[in-house]
C-alpha cells in the first residue's frame, strides 16, 4: 500500500499541487495583504469554480485522447438558452431545456468524431463557430433580461445563490468533482474511459465500445460546460452574446496545467480544478501588480508551456511513457 503522500506524488495532479503551493508562496511574499483577504479569495474561488467545471469536462475529453474546442461556445449557448427560455418554461423547464441543448451539441460532436471518423479538433472547431453563430442568429445581438420573479425563484437561488456566505457555484463544483472522481475511478464506465484513452485498440479487443465511451464523454463535457453557464447566469443574470468567448483556451490550459496529458489515458479532475485556480489567481495578481491586462494572455501562455513540460517530466520520472 502507498502512503497518502506517495499516492499524491504519483498522482497526475502532483504538478498542479506544487504549482499551487509555489504560487501561494510567491503571492504571499509579493502581495500578502492584498492576496489573503476574504474578498480576494472569494472572488478568485468563485470564478475558479466556474472555470473548474468547464475544465473538468475538458479533462475527461482529453483523457479519452480527444479535444473539445467548443466548450466556450457551448457554455455561452446554454447560458443564453437558459435566459431565453425562462419566460416561457419557467426556471426549472429552462434549465432542463438548456442542458438538453448542451447535451445535444456534445452528442452530435461525439457522433461526428466517432462515426464520421473525423479529427475531434476539426469537429469541435466547427462546433465552436456553429454554436456561437447560433447565439448570434437566435438573439440578434442582445440577450433578454431575467425577470425579478425568476431571480428569486428557489431553483435560481439553488444554482446561483449563497450558502453560509459562500457562492453556490463552489459547492456545485466540489460536489461534481467528487461525483466525477467516483465515476472515473470507481465505476465500469470510468475504467473504460481510461482504457479508451490509454490504448483504444486494447480496450476494444476487450470488448469496450470505445465509440460509445467517446460519445458519452463529449456529451458529458458539453453538459458540464452548459451547467457552468447556468450556474454563472443564475448568479448574475446579466449576460451578453459573447458569453464564454475564448473560454475554451482557458479550459484547455487549466486541464493541461492540472496534469492532463494529450497522449491520453492520464489526467486528473482535481488537477483541472487546481489549474483553473492557478489561472484565475494569476489574473488577479497581475492586475493587482498593475500589469497591463493584455499581459494576462501572454502569462497564461507561459504558464501553460512551463506546466506541460513540468508535468511531463514528472510523469516520465514516475516511469510512464509519454
Amino acid at each position, binding site marked *: 500500500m502507498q502512503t497518502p503522500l506517495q499516492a499524491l506524488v504519483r498522482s497526475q495532479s502532483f504538478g498542479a499541487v506544487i504549482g499551487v503551493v509555489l504560487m501561494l508562496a510567491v503571492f504571499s511574499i509579493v502581495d500578502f495583504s492584498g492576496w489573503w483577504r476574504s474578498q480576494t479569495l472569494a472572488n478568485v474561488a468563485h470564478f475558479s469554480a466556474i472555470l473548474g467545471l468547464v475544465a473538468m469536462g475538458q479533462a475527461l475529453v482529453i483523457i479519452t485522447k480527444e479535444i473539445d474546442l467548443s466548450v466556450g461556445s457551448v457554455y455561452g449557448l446554454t447560458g443564453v438558452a437558459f435566459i431565453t427560455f425562462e419566460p416561457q418554461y419557467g426556471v426549472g423547464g429552462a434549465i432542463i431545456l438548456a442542458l438538453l441543448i448542451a447535451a445535444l451539441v456534445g452528442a452530435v460532436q461525439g457522433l461526428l468524431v466517432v462515426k464520421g471518423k473525423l479529427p475531434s479538433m476539426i469537429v469541435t472547431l*466547427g462546433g465552436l463557430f*456553429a454554436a*456561437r453563430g447560433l447565439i*448570434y442568429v437566435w438573439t440578434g445581438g442582445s440577450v433578454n433580461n431575467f425577470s425579478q420573479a425568476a431571480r428569486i425563484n428557489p431553483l435560481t437561488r439553488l444554482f446561483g445563490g449563497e450558502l453560509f456566505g459562500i457562492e453556490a457555484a463552489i459547492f456545485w463544483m466540489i460536489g461534481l468533482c467528487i461525483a466525477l472522481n467516483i465515476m472515473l475511478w470507481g465505476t465500469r464506465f470510468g475504467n473504460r474511459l481510461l482504457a479508451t484513452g490509454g490504448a483504444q485498440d486494447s480496450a476494444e479487443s476487450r470488448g469496450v465500445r470505445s465509440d460509445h465511451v467517446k460519445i458519452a464523454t463529449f456529451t458529458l463535457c458539453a453538459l458540464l460546460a452548459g451547467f457552468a453557464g447556468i450556474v454563472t447566469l443564475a448568479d448574475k443574470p446579466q449576460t451578453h452574446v459573447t458569453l464564454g468567448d475564448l473560454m475554451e483556451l482557458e479550459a484547455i490550459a487549466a486541464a493541461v496545467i492540472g496534469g492532463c496529458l494529450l497522449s491520453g489515458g492520464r489526467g486528473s479532475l482535481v488537477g483541472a480544478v487546481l489549474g483553473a485556480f492557478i489561472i484565475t489567481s494569476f489574473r488577479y495578481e497581475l492586475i493587482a501588480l498593475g500589469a497591463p491586462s*493584455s499581459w494576462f494572455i501572454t502569462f497564461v501562455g507561459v504558464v501553460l508551456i512551463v506546466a*506541460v513540460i513540468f508535468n511531463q517530466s514528472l510523469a516520465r520520472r514516475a516511469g510512464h511513457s509519454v
Partner: protein
Amino acid sequence: MAAQGFKRLVRRHSEIGIFLIAGLLVVFFATSSDGRWANLYNFATILQVTATLGLMTLGVALVIGTGEIDISVGSTFGMGALVYLWLALRIDPAIAMLAAVTVGGLIGAFNGWLITKTGTPSLIITLGSLMIFRGIAIALTDGFSFSIPYAARGGFTYWLFGGGDILGFNTGLIWLLVSLVVLMILLRATPFGNRLLAVGGSAASAHSRGVRVDRIKFSAFVICGLLAGLAGGLEAGKLGFADGSMGRLMELQAIASCVLGGCLLAGGRVSLPGALMGAFVLSSIQSYLVVMGVRPQWFILTLGVIVVAAALGDRLLRQWAVKR
C-alpha cells in the same frame, strides 16, 4: 469503368475532393449571384485573401505533414504584420520584410525547439505561443496602431510586398505562387521532403533509417513561422495598417483549409495545392455570403457547418474510393 478510374484518381490524390468542391462552388456562386460574385474585382479580392491565408496554410500543411500541428500561426502573422509596418515606415520595406520573416522564423524556431527538445505535444506548445504572442502584439500596440498614410506609400519595394497590384491582382499573389512552387519542389523532389513525409508517416521507421526526426520537425516549424511572418507582412503592406488584432482566428481557418485540402492530421499525407484550394474555398464562401448581403449573424454559423460538412464529405469520398 469510369467510376473505377475515378476511384483510382481519388485514392492517389487526396486533394481531388476539394478541387471538386471548389469547381462546384465556383459554378454555383457564379450562376446564382448575378455577376456580383464573379467579377474581376471580387476575384482579385478573394485571391488577395487567399494569398495571405494560403501562405499561412502552406506552412501549417508542412507541419501537419510531420504529424505535428501549429496553431500559433495567427499570432505569428500578427507579429509579422506589426514588425513589417513598423520598419517599413522607418527603413526600407525590403528590410522590413526581411525582419518580419525573421521574426516569424524565430517564433517557429521557439516552437520547434520546445517541441523537439521536450517531446511535448505541439498542440499545447503552440497554443501557449498563440497566447504569448497575441498578448505581446496587443501590448506592443497599446494605445496606438501602426499605419502608413495612403499618400506616403510608394516605391518598388513597397509595391512588391503586397502594397500594389499587377494586372489588377495584389502582388501578394506572386509570393504565394513562388512559395507554392518552391515548397512543392521541396516536398516532392528533395531528400528533405522525402524525409519530412517519412517522419509524418512513421517517425520510428524514419528514425531507424537514419533520419534526424527532430531536425526535420524543427525545420518544418521554422518554415511555417517564416511563411506566417511573410503573410503577415504582405497583409500589413496591403492594408498599410497593423494593429494587435491582425491574424486573430486565422490559425483556425488555416487548419480548416489544410483538412479540407486533404491533409491528414495524423501526418504523412499532405497536398499543398489541396490546402491552398481549401483556403480559396473558405474565402470564396465568405465572399459569397458578403456579396449576397447575407446578415452577418449567419456568417459564423455557416462557416462552422461548412467546415464540418466539407470534412465529412471529403472523408466519405475517400472511403468510397478505397472500397473495391
